[in-house]
């Protein structure tokens, strides 16, 4: 299968899906699913294939090309598989919504654009795909109306700022090296000055930092995640935001090259160190802000930012261990955050759009599959051993500790402990505790929504127990960056400074659980009671009021709320308000009186003439 076919299939599938929707919604659903599954098949058939093709020379004579290498393949397979799951999920989730054709079209278009990004072999097609992704994302974020609209504007404005930076970067590369093909840029980069490389790193870092929501540039994310339709939130958080990581890899390790980008600056004030520290801040602050959220999706969104920090720290630290950790965490994060959003989406579906952490609870008996997804998702998010998140986080911690960066390690570890608190609140307030009476008879989760949840849950476990599966392909990627490969076996890492053997831990835990389960069963059988047979100091429990969800960590809130504000968001809001104010006032230049206008004209003329006659400016 050639790459042209793949990319044509991706884009064409999106358009055809839209057209199919005009005929029949069922046809469209099936077509969309077929398309996305076919993409999975095609991409997986391209495993270990490395090719480069030129699409055409039409863009000002620059050859727009595509290339497939380990890095592209890794991201591509993640994109297409998550897309397939999300499309499957959407078949039920979006059934009764308006503008479903449009939704599918945009979803598939975004996925095609992401695919085009990772496969692009030159910067212009990279940028074109990037922008297609950006505006189609904007269109889909706004889909839910009302609160989604400001979120969309916030997203697109920040995204535009990023794109403009990238555009400047790309054009400056083109001007400097007279090529846009990435492989040629790599060769030219040797001749560039250190200052120019730093400029490139910084300007691209702004773009990718906005996309990956690195802390001072993160403010678009919480609203955008929370307000999009849930399956799309999943895509948005799982893969789309992580295009930023792809970008960081591209600029740091492919274009500028590891040996340059890791030796840019001196001591603490080196590029990669500052990036790592930004990553650390990105971990800590958003994770703690997440604790204060009462909207399930917003909570996940803040975690989306926080987890992005781990990836940044991992890749910015720039050892093969850290790089592998960062990249692996990207994949893991995609898996569990998609799962979590799908799980929340299932609740939204069943409760007609409720996602308020204060008014739900006890759903685990009603929606076991969604609960399973939520549980494994948060385990992955925390990084509980035997889930995938553990392995990648372990790699990152180990890198930091052995790389003599204990303070970075502390930030990352602290982030994890903050994560536990907020995700437990998430799980507890949605699924555990008392089930409100109004939700006793909620809609069942349809099969099409259960399947992706189950698949992703299993993936979390499989990647957690056999991390070697993805690590092998990550190994290929980091080798292509010029790093020494890790010694990876199917169950984990074996190296001279500490091994990780997940299957070992897994089997022991399994055996011990089995033993204790047997003991548990052997003891006296317990009586099953319902949630209303509960200790309430001897009273019959007051229904719907016997739940602890609001202000779950009240003492902490009292202590920390004053400090946990999104100051950057406030700053940007202030700038935006100022801009609006300025715009409103600039407009008043056009007063509406012809006499003023004539004065402008005369002044212009007079200014020019007198300036020239007096000072000979021109």
């Amino acid at each position, binding site marked *: 299968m050639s790459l042209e076919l793949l990319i044509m299939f991706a884009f064409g599938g999106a358009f055809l899906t839209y057209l199919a929707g005009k005929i029949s919604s069922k046809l469209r659903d099936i077509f969309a699913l077929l398309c996305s599954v076919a993409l999975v098949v095609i991409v997986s058939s391209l495993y270990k294939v490395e090719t480069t093709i030129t699409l055409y020379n039409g863009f000002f004579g620059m050859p727009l090309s595509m290339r497939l290498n380990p890095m592209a393949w890794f991201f591509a397979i993640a994109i297409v598989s998550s897309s397939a799951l999300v499309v499957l999920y959407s078949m039920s989730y979006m059934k009764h919504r308006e503008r479903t054709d449009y939704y599918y079209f945009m979803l598939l278009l975004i996925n095609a654009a992401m695919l085009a990004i990772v496969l692009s072999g030159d910067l212009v097609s990279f940028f074109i795909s990037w922008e297609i992704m950006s505006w189609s994302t904007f269109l889909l974020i706004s889909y839910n109306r009302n609160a989604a609209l400001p979120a969309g504007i916030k997203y697109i404005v920040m995204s535009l700022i990023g794109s403009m930076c990238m555009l400047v970067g790309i054009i400056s590369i083109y001007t400097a090296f007279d090529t846009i093909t990435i492989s040629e840029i790599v060769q030219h980069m040797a001749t560039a000055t250190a200052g120019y490389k730093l400029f490139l790193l910084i300007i691209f870092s702004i773009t990718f930092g906005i996309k990956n929501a690195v802390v001072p540039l993160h403010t678009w994310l919480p609203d955008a995640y929370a307000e999009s339709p849930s399956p799309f939130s999943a895509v948005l958080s799982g893969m789309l935001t992580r295009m930023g990581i792809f970008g960081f890899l591209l600029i740091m390790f492919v274009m500028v090259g590891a040996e340059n980008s890791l030796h840019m600056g001196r001591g603490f004030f080196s590029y990669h160190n500052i990036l790592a520290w930004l990553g650390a801040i990105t971990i800590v602050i958003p994770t703690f802000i997440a604790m204060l959220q009462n909207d399930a999706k917003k909570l996940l969104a803040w975690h989306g930012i926080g987890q992005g920090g781990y990836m940044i720290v991992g890749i910015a630290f720039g050892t093969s261990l850290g790089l592998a950790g960062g990249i692996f965490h990207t994949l893991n994060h995609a898996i569990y955050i998609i799962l979590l959003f799908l799980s929340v989406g299932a609740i939204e579906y069943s409760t007609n759009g409720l996602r308020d952490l204060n008014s739900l609870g006890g759903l685990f008996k009603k929606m076991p599959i969604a609960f399973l997804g939520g549980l494994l998702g948060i385990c992955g998010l925390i990084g509980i051993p035997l889930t995938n998140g553990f392995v990648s986080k372990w790699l990152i911690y180990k890198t930091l500790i052995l790389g003599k960066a204990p303070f970075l390690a502390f930030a990352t570890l602290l982030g994890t402990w903050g994560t*536990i608190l907020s995700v437990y609140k998430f799980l507890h307030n949605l699924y555990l505790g008392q089930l409100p009476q109004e939700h006793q008879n909620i809609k069942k989760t349809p099969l099409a929504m259960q399947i992706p949840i189950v698949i992703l849950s299993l993936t979390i476990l499989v990647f957690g127990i056999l991390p070697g599966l993805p690590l092998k392909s990550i190994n290929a990627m980091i080798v292509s960056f010029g790093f020494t490969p890790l010694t990876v076996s199917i169950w984990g890492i074996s190296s001279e400074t*500490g091994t990780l053997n997940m299957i070992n831990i897994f089997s022991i835990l399994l055996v011990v659980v089995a033993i204790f389960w047997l003991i548990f069963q052997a003891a006296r059988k317990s009586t099953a009671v319902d949630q209303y047979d509960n200790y309430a100091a001897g009273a019959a429990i007051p229904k719907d009021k016997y739940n602890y969800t609001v202000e779950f960590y009240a003492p902490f809130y009292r202590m920390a709320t004053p400090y946990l504000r999104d100051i950057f968001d406030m700053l940007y809001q202030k700038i935006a308000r100022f801009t609006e104010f300025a715009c409103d006032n600039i407009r008043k230049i056009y007063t509406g009186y012809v006499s003023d206008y004539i004065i402008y004209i005369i002044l212009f003329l007079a200014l020019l003439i007198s300036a020239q006659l007096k000072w000979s400016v021109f």
Partner: protein
Amino acid sequence: MKILSLFISPLLALIIGLLFLGISRKITAKIHWRCGPPVYQPLIDVIRSFSQKSISHGAFFDFGIILSLSSSVVLIYFLPVGDLYAMTSGGLIAFLYLMLLGPFGIALSSAASGNPNSSIGVSRKFLLALAYEVPLLLVLLTVMTHYNTISLVEIVNIQAGTGMAFSSWALVLPGIAYFLILPAVLGVRPFEIVSAPQEISSGPVAEFGGKHLAFYTLQHALQLFVGLALFVNIFLGGGTLFGLLNPIAGTVWATILGIIIFLVKMFIVLVIELFINAVYPRFRIEQAMRYLWKWPTLIAFVGLVIVAILN
């Protein structure tokens, strides 16, 4: 040795944990000028709990507590008790994460019971964990950075050569910090905020009875064991008598002696902790957080800075 320790370690930990629970009750009673229960009282309690009929709020209510106890047992495998350890995979980081699973299992189980007291208890547990993890992480990072390894066994082995960690002055401050937070790690007074029977009806275990309670008690015993053993391993040189055991190294007797020395060290730490917890009343959660984030964190941070500069 590893295969053997697969069977011995959990049994030893359970017995010693229960024994320590009993001893602590006894010693506390003595400090209170009481007679106190026999030291095997916790064992009786466990047997009683097992014999009782419990209630269950669903499969998840059961699963959580089983998971909690099992993960605590797995945790034991990572802990070198003298020469006795079964696993090293993942090192101290994996150990830290596995330490999470115990409370997490209880949290899931108790939240599944649908009792708000449990939820409050869990909320407090996590807040307390956050509070003491800050200094604890700093301390562990200091040790890992100082010895430049993430393996618990290696840390112990390095100390076996040099005596104990306290002999290296860089680790004095972290040691003090750890000692200050140890009651919080063990969850005893003055940090008995989580179960707080008088306020929130035992918190997470409000709905636990019968075998659930028995499992919880066992888990609690293991937690006590782990908390003490980690301190002994990291700061007191594990099962070595400050490097004096070398002559009979390699024999079974050395191993047994190592274990005994280890237990004695644990016992000493326990007793010192008991003197603190027997005379203090309970903190409120904010007070606990403020305390833990103030002095222990400060000390641990200074320790980490020193070690980071030294390296």
